[in-house]
């Protein structure tokens, strides 16, 4: 009797893969359309969910966090980024610049999140997360 082959690609696998990709695309489309486009945008810096600082995205500025690690946050030309960090790995610095609402740069070791939000900020985020 031939054993059920568990190693060869099957139709069910294709369905599973397609389902995951479809779910990802649906989530992506949802988060892009729900994000309030246009209007005034601000950069909000959070640490462990607590708002540390709010900066307008259309004004150049800098903000330095000195905690477990140091994060230097810079706003320039309508974009925001963590440009310097003393954290291991520096994933936050590699994340680059953000300008669209609900995009964020995260420094996990420092529990810091830099988020671009519409002025009615909290609503935008909830609309995506709901």
């Amino acid at each position: 009797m031939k054993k059920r082959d568990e190693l060869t690609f099957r139709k069910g696998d294709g369905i599973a893969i397609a389902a995951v990709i479809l779910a990802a695309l649906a989530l992506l489309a949802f988060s892009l359309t729900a994000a309030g486009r246009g209007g005034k945008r601000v950069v909000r810096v959070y640490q462990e969910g607590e708002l540390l600082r709010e900066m307008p995205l259309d004004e150049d500025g800098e903000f330095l966090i000195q905690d477990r690690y140091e994060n230097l946050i810079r706003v320039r030309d309508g974009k925001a980024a963590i440009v310097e960090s003393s954290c291991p790995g520096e994933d936050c610095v590699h994340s680059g610049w953000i300008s669209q609402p609900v995009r964020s740069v995260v420094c996990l070791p420092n529990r810091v999140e830099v988020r671009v939000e519409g002025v009615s900020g909290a609503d935008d985020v909830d609309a995506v997360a709901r």
Partner: protein
Amino acid sequence: MKTKDLTTMAILTALAMALGWVERMIPLELLIPLPGVKLGLANTVTLFALYRLNWPAALLILTARCLLGALFSGNVTALAFSLCGGVLSLAAMAAAKRCRGLSVWGVSVLGAAAHNCGQILTAMLLMHSRAILGYLPYLLLIGTACGCATAAAASGVLRALRSGAAG
């Protein structure tokens, strides 16, 4: 527990940690600048253990790998991520393995997707933020590709072992 099983599990744990170490030398985050993007090479071992041994063995290997990894790197935050993602992933793979229509490929991709969800869940809890959810679609897409790579590796090894040592 038989000595042979114990030894196999110990070797697999060591192998998973070595793969994790190799993986850290591949700068994938330069190509795809998102935090938490990984190839998931060590998941090949989990997948292998799930098929060659059983799910409790896979869980033991996974836990040992995460604990030892955190011990060596000294990174406790990473422990929360790897354990939460890993356990969710293993649970999904064990469940998917029971589905008759799925082979290693589907199981691996679903495991990767569950791992991504676990990562995002941990991040949401740690950061008290729901906006991180916006990362999930990107992680899922990359995870699907990585899940296929993992499946290719695991099925290759399993097939070679099956034809070599018949039983």
